[in-house]
């Protein structure tokens, strides 16, 4: 755990980008498919058929799907 925190600190402290240096991050291909409404639909469908849930795109009210 200490090593993980130290690694995290090093990684976050090494790089600082100005707004004009973030153009690549703003492109359509850099949008994580996990973070879209399509992903939320797929996550809802899959979580009904698995027992696992969480740390995913699914959110909102649940359903009586069982």
């Amino acid at each position, binding site marked *: 755990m200490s090593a993980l925190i130290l690694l995290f600190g090093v990684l976050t402290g090494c790089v600082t980008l100005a707004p004009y240096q973030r153009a690549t991050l703003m492109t*359509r*291909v850099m949008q994580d498919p996990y973070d879209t409404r*399509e992903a939320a639909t797929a996550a809802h*469908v*899959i979580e009904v058929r698995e027992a696992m*849930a*969480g740390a995913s795109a699914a959110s*909102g009210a649940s359903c*009586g799907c069982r």
Partner: protein
Amino acid sequence: MPLAPLLVGLLVTGGAGAADPPVRVDTSSARVDVFTDEWVTVVAPSANLDLTLPRGWSVSGAWAADVISGATPHITTDAISSATSFHELRNGLSVDLQAAPKTTWSLHGSYAGSIESDFVSNTAGLGAKVDLLKRMASLRADYHSRFETTGRADDRSYSEPASAQLLDLSWAWILGRGTVATLLASGEWDACSPALGCVANPYRTVRTTQGVVLPERHPDTRGRAAGALRLSQALGANTAVHGGYRYYADSWRISGHTADLSLARSLFKDALVLRANGRFSRQGAAFFFGPEYDGTPAWRTGDRDLGALHTWKAGIAVEGSAYTLEGLSRLSLAANIDRLWLRQDDFAGDHSHDAWLVGGGLSAAF
């Protein structure tokens, strides 16, 4: 006023026409997804609207429905114990109100509700998001409290309550000009009716080796936790790869792993974006799961999804966008098709849960 024409009108016009409007449409979208396997077909239309309000406020609203139809070849261990065909309609609404007094932090409150003939769910939430480290990192925390009531379509007096408390945390940080990593963690505690248990189905029964038919009965509490790591990496100006890994565990002794990978390619200056994606998951069984039961166990389930299983999903998606339309910053048309394979360890020969997931939609940004 009918909802569909209103949403389409807002989708295309964005409420344009008012000088310096106090309310501005940011994005609007509508889509339809269809899921189908040997047992059920679900048609799921949905629509979303994001508005910017004065003084740093914004609101998002969404509607989604599930139109479910199906026929079940199995009689005992199935969603409906004795029905051969069924139809169901679920409607859900959600609203999220956000306040952003500063550009570096925001608060939000949300409500989501869904209703069907034998189930009602209400979820309220609060959350906060803050940008840190010269806006190289973003921390988000969300807390939700959910209340559900499970009923029976054939018995209006039947009503079993359940509640859940959920906490979601995420930490996203920019590691370089084309690299973003995200850590996610979630925890959930469910407290359910002792007469039914958590996520138990009141229609489902199990048959013991002695030939006795018993109603399904799950434990009335459940603790769940999951942690995930996601990474997005640009490969040049027009290509990116995204991947993630999640570990899950709960108090029913179900644990599992999920991994996903996708590749995105932009063509014609973002006018066309192609994506290919894959997902694999593997889970163990709940401690009370069994393909058959001997005697009268305290906990018993006919839900095969609580058993050991693994799933694969593979698919492609395409999105076409136009950027030079009057009043719109972007208008996009998207479509996706995915194939899902599900294999349960105790029913290896059953391929009836292999499914297609097809979807498409229109979205506009103003």
